[in-house]
């Protein structure tokens, strides 16, 4: 349970960070919250020669809400999104308490989790449902990458060795709609990675028509996934039981889960179906309550 020998550096600025990443290339690993990287190093599954601890770099742990987006600094701890409510982004605070356990939530970061790219991680599913993008930066350039282009394969992303993920940008929902969101996670015990995770979000207009929707899936393939076909079926329609059922069935077919000790492929698809159905039914019910109180 001791890592292989490694060097450690804690830069104070982004520029220093970029320099170090350029200098050490593949041999460097960025240390954010360390909740995945450090256990992997202790098990000697990872053995980076240089750890670049970005904990001292200022302004990476902030959140800015503007009319068109919520910008979340990469070093934002999971626990912040558990305790801080962003009213127009209810799915975030619905997801955060499902991540691991309080110790991990206090240390682990959103940027770190995305860059680690575990297909079963919770943020991937939720941020795909919210159509988020990530800001990748290096000395050379800044680039904005949509999350669905960011995830490449298991533990593999579009990040180049010299790049740092600095920010997550979540677009704001439409102003004239009420927005709802729920995260469902089948876990074998608290702190477990998802057997299946399903993030469901939808914006509903005054008459109950879905104006925007997103469905994200965790542990349903080699990368976090968005059930785009299913979500598209919702747009412009009301949440009738028939539609909910149909959308749930379509969502269950999006993804490519593996049979393993957590369940068969068929089981995992069925869990997506059950959770999408439960999520949309719950959203419909909440919209009815909200609409009644407005009326």
């Amino acid at each position, binding site marked *: 349970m001791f890592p292989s020998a490694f060097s450690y550096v804690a830069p104070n600025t982004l520029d220093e960070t970029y320099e170090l990443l350029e200098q050490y290339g593949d041999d460097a690993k960025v240390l954010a919250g360390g909740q995945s990287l450090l256990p992997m190093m202790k098990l000697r599954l990872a053995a980076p020669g240089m750890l670049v601890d970005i904990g001292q770099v200022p302004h990476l742990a902030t959140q800015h809400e503007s009319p068109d987006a919520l910008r979340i600094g990469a070093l934002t701890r999971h626990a912040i999104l558990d305790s801080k409510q962003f009213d127009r982004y209810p799915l975030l605070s619905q997801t955060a308490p499902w991540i691991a356990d309080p110790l991990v939530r206090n240390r682990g970061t959103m940027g770190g989790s995305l860059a680690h790219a575990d297909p079963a991680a919770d943020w991937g599913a939720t941020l795909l449902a919210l159509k988020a993008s990530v800001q990748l930066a290096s000395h050379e350039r800044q680039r904005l990458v949509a999350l669905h282009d960011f995830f490449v394969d298991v533990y593999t992303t579009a990040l180049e060795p010299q790049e740092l993920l600095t920010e997550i940008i979540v677009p704001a929902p439409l102003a004239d709609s009420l927005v709802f969101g729920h995260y469902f996670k089948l876990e074998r*015990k608290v702190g477990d990675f998802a*057997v299946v995770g399903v993030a469901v979000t939808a914006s509903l207009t005054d008459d109950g028509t879905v104006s925007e929707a997103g469905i994200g899936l965790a542990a349903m393939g080699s990368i976090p996934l968005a059930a785009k076909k299913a979500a598209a079926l919702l747009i412009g329609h009301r949440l009738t039981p028939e539609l909910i059922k149909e959308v749930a069935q379509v969502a269950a077919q999006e993804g490519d889960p593996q049979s393993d000790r957590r369940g068969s492929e068929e089981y995992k698809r*069925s869990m997506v179906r059950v959770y999408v159905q439960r999520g949309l039914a719950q959203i419909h019910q909440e919209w009815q309550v909200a609409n009644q109180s407005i009326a």
Partner: protein
Amino acid sequence: MAMEATESRPLGKAIKRKEDPRFIRRQGRYLDDIVLPGMLYMALARSPYAHARIKNIRLDEAYKVLGVKAILTGADLEKMNLSWMPTLAGDRQMVLATGKVLFQYQEVAAVVAETRAAAEDAVQRIEVDYQPLDAVVDPYAAMKPDAPLLREDREQKDNHIFHWEVGDREGTENTLASSPIVVKEFIRMPRVHPAPVEPCGCIADYQKSTGKMTWYVTSQAPHAHRTVLAMVSGLPEHMIHVISPDIGGGFGNKVPVYPGYVCSIVLSLQLGRPVKWIETRTENIATTNFARDYHMTAEIGATEEGIVTGLKVITIADHGAFDAAADPSKFPAGLFSIVTGSYNFPIAFAEVDGVYTNKAPGGVAYRCSFRVTEASFLIERVMNTLALRLNLDPVELRRRNFIQPDQFPYQSPLGWTYDSGNYDLTLDKALELVGYEKLREEQAERRARGELVGIGISTFTEIVGAGPSNTFDILGIKMFDSCEIRIHPTGKAIARLGARHQGQGHETTFAQVIAEELGLTTADVLIEEGDTDTAPYGLGTYASRSTPTAGGAAALAARRIRQKAIQIAAHLLEVSADDVEWNGEKFVTKGLESRGVGMGEVALAAYTNLPQGMEPGLEATYYYDPPNLTFPNGAYIAVVSIDRGTGQVAVERFVAVDDCGTVINPMVVDGQIHGGLTEGFGIAFMQEIAFDEDGNNLAPNFMEYLVPTAVEAPHWETGRTVTPSPHHPIGAKGVGESPNVGSPAAFVNAVVDALSPYGVTNLEIPLFPWKVWNVLREHGLTL
């Protein structure tokens, strides 16, 4: 409410645990807290294969790591005749592999270095050429004639270890043949692991100048380990000092001797420096003793009225690569013959065949008195099947077959003499607590609404407290236990026992027993265990034996003190000893209660003012050889509901009524029950060490081997009946293991009950959600 340790007459009171302040303030002293000057660190190289020949081991690169002091291989140990070690089960086990490896993660080489990191670096640089062989994973496949031979070292050229049987085979078969009702069920208890929070480890500290070996070790049985070490190493026993420091849970995992222990001792002897070895979590789960892995088929015969006529049990026991079971020597299948349980079976037969497979060796008695959990799970599950077959309420079936209070001492058909019990009374209490009749009504209503709701019953009887010396020994050493009490001049006492607690609360409960006998308070009595240079010889703590054995010794040692004290009291009261009596708090003159002296005054007099000719001092030792085991029992009721969408089972309620005889400390008993129920919950729903076809361990860490936390654990409702043991000095029975023994069947019976309207009678644990979902889907019950 919990009471302070200064409470008088403490027996039966919820005295706060004396050990807790140091544990919760991080002032415990566990093995890994101990750092000795000049200490070296050991790490083990382990096999990636479950079955392979070792062609070659190269150490050159490993020796290049800075700080490496020595590397041991099986070949080195062979020269010392130490490459194999005896197991408690009479088999032998490789210390470091020679010739071939027999399970994944098997110990292949030991590196000792100045730091642990250096030792681990060197382990990574050891190069071993393996020639993989076909692995045998399934115990039934292991018994086939064409199965690969695993243990080439044995004369016997197959994978069969032992056959053990008890009872009347022919009579039982005849009874079953003539019984109008016979139910048969295959019940598997998968391989699980005790997984204590603190893994195993040791520091061997051999001083060449004195010839003394001090061995700090996470040991549930320090004296037994000292004797084994003396026998194996040839070191004189008085020159071995075993210290078992604070232990972070044992549950049977810290009874056996492990290869890492032997290697660190050899290396300390060679180098003359302390050598520390402490397991990683994976090493603990994947190599040290597992539990269960029992594959059982039971048949129960009954009349149409549901009176049981006979029980037959056929079992395959998977012991892995070496039979390293930690059972009393004459019991290769432990006390599995308690399998007739709480029921009045006129005749029974049970057999167990042990087999080798390419898995880690064992199995240990995980929080159970040697295969008692397997036995209880089996009988309580199959009684449930019988109730379904007869269409009888499981409560009613049990009532018709309980051993009755007037049958005690009850002679079981498989050879045990149950000491006491009142099974109807215990069950009544549980039914009352849970509100059984109303619960069944609610169940019917909820079922009508399409809900899957089940109620499961388990009314188990345990056998604990090994044990009487005419039957029980470990490697020939009789399984008595001991206590030595010294009363100091100011009336304060220190007591040392041969047991070794790992969280059970001995520092409080045994102080209560002694204080009650001597008119002291719990605060007045310091309990010490785990140091073989100071404590009297005993066989340790496991199998719920501490209270039945060491607890008996504590009471009897205290009474021995009183025998002398009464003479001193008579001297102080200036009357004859015949005119003095003990009133429970002090010595008083008969007929004149106001004239009395307490233990404090007597103690002072024992050192300052003795009767003419009396030997000074006030101390006593008692070696207690119990006349019988104790037979605690319980009635557990689980209420569950099943999510038809996901297959997840929610435990809505769990009522546990235990009868462990006289209760020393109700809070400590409740704590034991809560912990054991949580483990039983894990066994029923979450845990299995599974292997793939190549023998790769699929759950070698806490990512895959799931241990329930407070979040998963249901709310436990506990209750008690008190039927004292007639032979124990204070009427107490063991209790620590009852909840682990009794609860798995209650959970599974409840889930089966939820699904029984659809024809389900049997489910295999662990009840992972996907498994339950598969059953739901088979019966068209999924959403």
